[in-house]
């Protein structure tokens, strides 16, 4: 990752080129477990976005003080701190949303994508770049979750954002966790197809 990246490139990188779900295939467990509706995906994605940005900035700011041998425990500690902060704030200020996804917020601590970004990027790069990278990755995750949630909610329960749009339930299978993998797989294929098509057009 080059230093001269502009903030916009960093942002776009997280959403498209290195999308955590469709490209890096990280944090699949929550992606398939929670993304049964658009709202669930949006809520968890937002929580991850905040944790990712805060953690990236914190680690980037403290990178010179982190002993290389204990960097992973330090990352985990940082993430755990921010997750706790988000968890408590959600419980206090958004009780309705929290009641739905409270237990999922706590497992953000174990999300591979956040630790991976800290290890790959934030511990080497300056604060502002880390901020944009964190924002990009968080948004990438958010977009991924919302897209999967959209497909699964539409096909599984025939609704969007809780509103019945189809009037019937096409395939109940899409609500089940295993269907999450199915949707992710299809999305990956779709993203790759776009990329290949784009590259070929550029060539020809």
């Amino acid at each position, binding site marked *: 990752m080059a230093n001269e990246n502009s903030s916009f490139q960093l942002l776009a990188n997280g959403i498209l080129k290195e999308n955590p779900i469709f490209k890096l295939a990280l944090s699949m467990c929550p992606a398939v477990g929670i993304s049964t509706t658009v709202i669930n995906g949006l809520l968890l994605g937002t929580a991850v976005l905040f944790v990712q940005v805060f953690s990236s900035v914190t680690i980037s700011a403290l990178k010179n003080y982190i002993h290389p*041998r*204990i960097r992973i425990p330090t990352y985990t*500690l940082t993430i*755990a*701190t921010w997750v706790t902060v988000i968890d408590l704030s959600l419980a*206090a200020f958004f009780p309705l949303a929290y009641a739905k996804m409270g237990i999922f917020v706590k497992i953000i601590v174990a999300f591979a994508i956040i630790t991976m970004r800290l290890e790959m990027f934030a511990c080497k790069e300056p604060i502002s770049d880390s901020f944009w990278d964190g924002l990009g990755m968080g948004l990438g995750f958010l977009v991924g979750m919302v897209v999967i949630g959209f497909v699964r909610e539409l096909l599984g329960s025939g609704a969007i954002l809780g509103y019945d749009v189809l009037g019937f339930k096409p395939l109940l299978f899409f609500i089940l966790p295993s269907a999450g993998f199915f949707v992710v797989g299809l999305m990956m294929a779709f993203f790759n197809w776009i990329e290949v098509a784009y590259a070929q057009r550029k060539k020809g």
Partner: protein
Amino acid sequence: MKNILTIILRLTVSCLIAGLIMGMTFVFTNKAKKANEHAREEKVVFSLLGYSKANPIPDSMGLHEIFRYVVSDGEAQSIGYLLPSEGHGEAEAFNFVRIDLDGKYLDSSSVAITEKKVKDQKDRDAAVQIALGAGKEIRFVDQTIVVTEGDGRLAYLLGGKFPGFKTHIAIMLALDPSYSILGLEVMEHEEDPGLGAEIEQEYFKNQFKLKPFEKIKSIEVVKAPLPNEYFDALEGRVDESAAFDIMKQYSDQDIYALTGATISSAAVSSGVRAMTKKFAYRLDILDRVLNEQQIAVPF
């Protein structure tokens, strides 16, 4: 060696900082969280009684809280009830009635506390301690709300906690004066989503509705599929009088266990059973004592 020391130092410092941040967030958010919980509790109380914001509780109805304490006086233990007295709103508006473990009346003392302060556990404990005098140890156990309409009792609302499949399940139960169940609401639990967490669903918790006390005393779960008409009635998909008839028809049935969550279902059933039985036993004793001693209460 030097490495170890710096690592220890750095980890300790980072842990301290992390702890500080988390602690500060807790302090900032705790008040809002408490307020949320209180608002939720109030809403649940209203909905269990069949009222909502749009359809508020009429003025003729009164909610009276009873606080139960365990009092230890050296070796001897007794149960203490903090009850509102007839003259509501005055300074010494509460009585603390002590009953020994065999159900015999011990003594009663008036407690100086206002109705607002009685809701706060710290203030309440302090006031009870003053009324009892030093040397006695008190421990708050639970609280019950008696709902009255005019002179008659309408319902009891009691909260309770019991072990579920993972951690504790906290529920709120509404009973009518003959201890039959009016409604049940799950307040807090950490069961598995999709399995044990289904105890929150209408079709599970409404199964307890309208069950008579006689049935509750021996209620169990059965592993059988929930009949379709019963499911529709529990989920409120049929109109009210039809739902009532169907639920009445099933009121002598055991609870249909949730698929894949028999333990959670059984935990709720046995929890409800224990809560109801114990509450009925205690309230009968309390009522007898209040009658014998001519202690005036507003319920």
